[in-house]
């Protein structure tokens, strides 16, 4: 009883705290929409794989035809991958160049060939559309803290690079959509990698689990006399009224974690084991737990979920070749295993996974690695993805080209807003409400609906029969 009323309180607070008529209407709209949804299961999940540190993604997706490969080899110098080592891919639409993937991502090459994986070229944070001349003469607003890790991670997760927002776009979606989920104790936003801005809403917190699931307080709720005494005391301490905001917040976190564990652990316990085999890496184990959580969606009473998983160590000022050769296969295998598990669970069209990272890196070398830059290449995976193609505009790679701000720090040609808009629409955010989730989207997205999207999602309509 107490738990449900707490969530109800939060639900009311969410409307009151934001206090805009628009948001209130949206909540009503979505409730109506849910009521009108077509028969069959209405479930969707977005999974963000955050490659923190700033992945050198111009060695992930490389032009293989000449003269572009030669341009690549010249600008990258000792960082260039041999032409023959690149895994060829055949994009559905041609920009006249041939492309290959890093030799370590065999599974991703296969997923691309099976049209389950799309690539989006030269994505990055932008406050508004930006040309090199505008960059140089200062006539456009630029993302705050350009090229800085902490700032660009924040902007990639908030999608508001013109200010420092601790609220992320999945958090904003959750503030709107949470009422569509009926579990009072578990957030629709689940993190496998701790705190993150992407899933932090104004009122919605994300729920954190580990690769092994949720964490329970020792002895809590057990029946031994000592446990009963301690359980009552814990409930007593967490139930006191706290004026100090830090105490209040700490108490809420503890209380929320204890309650959520009771629900989450019992829901997961009811899931049959997966036949899909996952590699013994931290990342694969995390994706396995995401798959299990999705399998438990009905017990958890979830119609919409997001998952955040972060893998760090991409800040390769040093040894980029060696490190990527070791790290990219881990990513490739984990994504492929996750995709196989989604097929096994028959939810392949209902789960979309995308990559994000602080920034791309300089095309030119520092002798051992590359430095912080701006635009980079990204991946989107799932049954709803129009895979087997490269979206956006793959840039020229020679130094001094029309996007080069110096050393091959390229101005992005697709903004994070555009990248996320297609994902948010697929997830169920109505086009009219997109600015609530991505406040700057109007600066990038105009014209007819067909010309607005980047196009990597096959079907952006919300209702979908099973």
């Amino acid at each position: 009883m107490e738990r449900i009323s707490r969530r109800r309180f939060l639900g009311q607070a969410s409307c009151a705290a934001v206090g805009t008529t628009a948001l209130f209407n949206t909540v009503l709209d979505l409730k109506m929409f849910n009521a009108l949804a077509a028969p069959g299961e209405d479930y969707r999940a977005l999974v963000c794989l955050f490659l923190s540190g700033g992945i050198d993604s111009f060695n992930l997706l490389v032009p293989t035809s000449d003269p572009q490969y030669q341009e690549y080899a010249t600008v990258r110098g000792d960082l260039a991958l041999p032409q023959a080592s690149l895994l060829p891919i055949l994009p559905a639409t041609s920009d006249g160049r041939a492309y290959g993937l890093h030799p370590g991502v065999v599974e991703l090459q296969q997923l691309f060939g099976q049209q389950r994986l799309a690539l989006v070229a030269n994505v990055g944070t932008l406050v508004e559309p930006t040309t090199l001349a505008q960059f140089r003469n200062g006539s456009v607003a630029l993302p705050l803290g350009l090229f800085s890790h902490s700032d660009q991670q924040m902007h990639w997760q908030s999608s508001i690079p013109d200010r420092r927002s601790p609220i992320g776009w999945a958090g904003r979606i959750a503030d709107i959509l949470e009422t569509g989920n009926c579990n009072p104790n578990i957030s629709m936003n689940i993190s496998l990698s701790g705190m993150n801005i992407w899933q932090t809403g104004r009122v919605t917190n994300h729920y954190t689990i580990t690769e092994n699931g949720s964490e329970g307080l020792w002895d809590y709720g057990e029946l031994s006399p000592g446990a009963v005494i301690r359980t009552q005391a814990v409930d007593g301490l967490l139930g006191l009224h706290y004026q100090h905001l830090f105490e209040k917040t700490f108490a809420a976190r503890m209380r929320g974690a204890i309650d959520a564990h009771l629900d989450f652990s019992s829901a997961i316990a009811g899931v049959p084991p997966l036949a899909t085999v996952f590699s013994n890496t931290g990342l694969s184990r995390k994706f396995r737990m995401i798959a299990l959580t999705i399998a438990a969606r009905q017990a958890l009473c979830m119609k919409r979920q997001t998952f955040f998983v972060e893998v760090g160590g991409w800040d390769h000022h040093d040894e980029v070749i060696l490190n990527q050769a070791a790290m990219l296969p881990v990513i490739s295998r984990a994504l492929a295993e996750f995709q196989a598990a989604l097929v096994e669970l028959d939810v392949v069209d209902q789960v979309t996974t995308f990559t994000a990272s602080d920034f791309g890196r300089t095309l030119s070398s520092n002798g051992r690695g590359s430095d912080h830059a701006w635009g980079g290449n990204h991946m989107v995976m799932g049954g709803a993805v129009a895979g087997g193609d490269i979206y956006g505009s793959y840039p020229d790679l020679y130094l001094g080209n029309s996007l080069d701000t110096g050393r091959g720090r390229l101005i992005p040609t697709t903004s994070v807003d555009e990248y996320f808009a297609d994902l948010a629409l697929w997830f169920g955010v109505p086009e009219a409400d997109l600015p609530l989730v991505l406040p700057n989207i109007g600066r990038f997205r105009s014209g007819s609906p067909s010309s607005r999207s980047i196009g990597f999602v096959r079907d952006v309509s919300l209702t979908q029969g099973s």
Partner: protein
Amino acid sequence: MAGTARAATSPAEASRFLSQATLGADWEEIQRTSRIGFDAWLREQFARPIGYQQPLIDRRLRMGLEVTPEHRRWAWWEQVLEGPDPLRQRVALALSEIFVVSDANDTVSQSPQGLANYYDMLLRNAFGNYRDLLRDVTLHPIMGAYLSHLRNEKSYPAIGRFPDENYAREIMQLFSIGLFQLKQDGTFVRNGAGQPIPTYDNDDITQFAKIFTGLAFDGADRNFHQGEAEWTRPMRMYEEFHEPGVKRLLRGRIVPAGQSGMRDVEAAVDCLFRHPNVGPFIARRLIQRLVTSNPSPGYVARVAAKFANNGRGVRGDLKAVVRAILVDPEARRRPVGSEIGRGMLRESFLRRVHLARAFDAASLAGTTPIDDGGAPETFGQRPVSSPTVFNFFLPDHQPNGPIGDAGLFAPEFQIITAVTAISSANALSGQIRGAMNYDPANALEVRLDLTDEIAIASNPNALLNRLDLILMAGTMSEPMREVLLRALTSIDDPDERVRTAIELIAIAPEYAVVK
């Protein structure tokens, strides 16, 4: 002595002071500090010998024993629990969360001896001058390996190769001046449009990147590329790999062509040291580590003024800065009930350290081999194991909900998740009920000494008074006390009564916040 009466302070105030100035204090230290007063305590601490880690590592090496990352962590615990210099250990830990290196980095973890030497460098400079600290950090091979300016080479324009920008960026963003121009009270200088003004741009970074070229190990073989890894000596300048020519620094300062590479480095360190941002930047960071997440502008300004001039014309005197932080009225005055954002959340891992120091954790064998293998997951934190150079949490982290709505910062909440909130509480239970490490023979197991508490456990009120003073500086509220009393009076066994009391305090919201 005439000053004695004036110097004395109540045990509760002494406990509160020690919760800011140390990593935890036991009953005796609280009583002693209460008798001698803060000023005498500070003077005494500034004069104490230094509890260095590297000698403990070197002792193992001399005995022919292996040295792994966990042995450095043993050394950390040994000095934190047994060392002569609690204030210095507290400040050095704070510095390690500003001038971050981490054994989560493979290269750094390969040299526990070098990492101990780096930490000792922080200990040595903790009461020294910030300029020396910034230079020593810059030239330390552990930092060189961590932020990749070790073996960073000059540019080779013909093949499109440019100096590594990593250290150039982070020394400015994280170690000295930060991203935006600051007033002396730590608030942003703003332009006509109300926007903060960047302290540097990417061109500045490419200029500083040229400075930090030519540095490599100072081994006997004097080889830039393949030289023997000498982790305990400052990096050496190899002129042939150092970028020649003029470099433009900040605020119009120019490094002329033709001077030695090391003079370039000194000039860059000087340029940053003289920047008006450093005082308020470092003041805010240290205040956040020691006293409060949200210092008032006046508090930052008072500490920044001490940074600018210690009273004897010296800039960068960290001893003066530490003293200013701890004796400031904003640190010393207890918040009243309406001040609902003062103080800070205890760092997750520091609850473990606090309990160990408050109850004299020790082993039968006398050593404290605590390795904290699972701490990064359990607590979200372990000293010198940050996942990135940005520390475990950001100084401007704002949890959503009431703290964020009030516009307040609470960095330490960034690592309190539904996982770590629970797993850390479980780990604290383990520490209170069992040992802080595992030894099949028991002799090396480090346990809390609760003898004095068990002795008074028959009187639950007396027990709570004592625990309130040691752990919470006498701030326990009446409702919290009632919850604990109800539990304790249901338990007959004195040992169990004491352990339950400490366990409940350790997960209580009122304990979690140092006010």
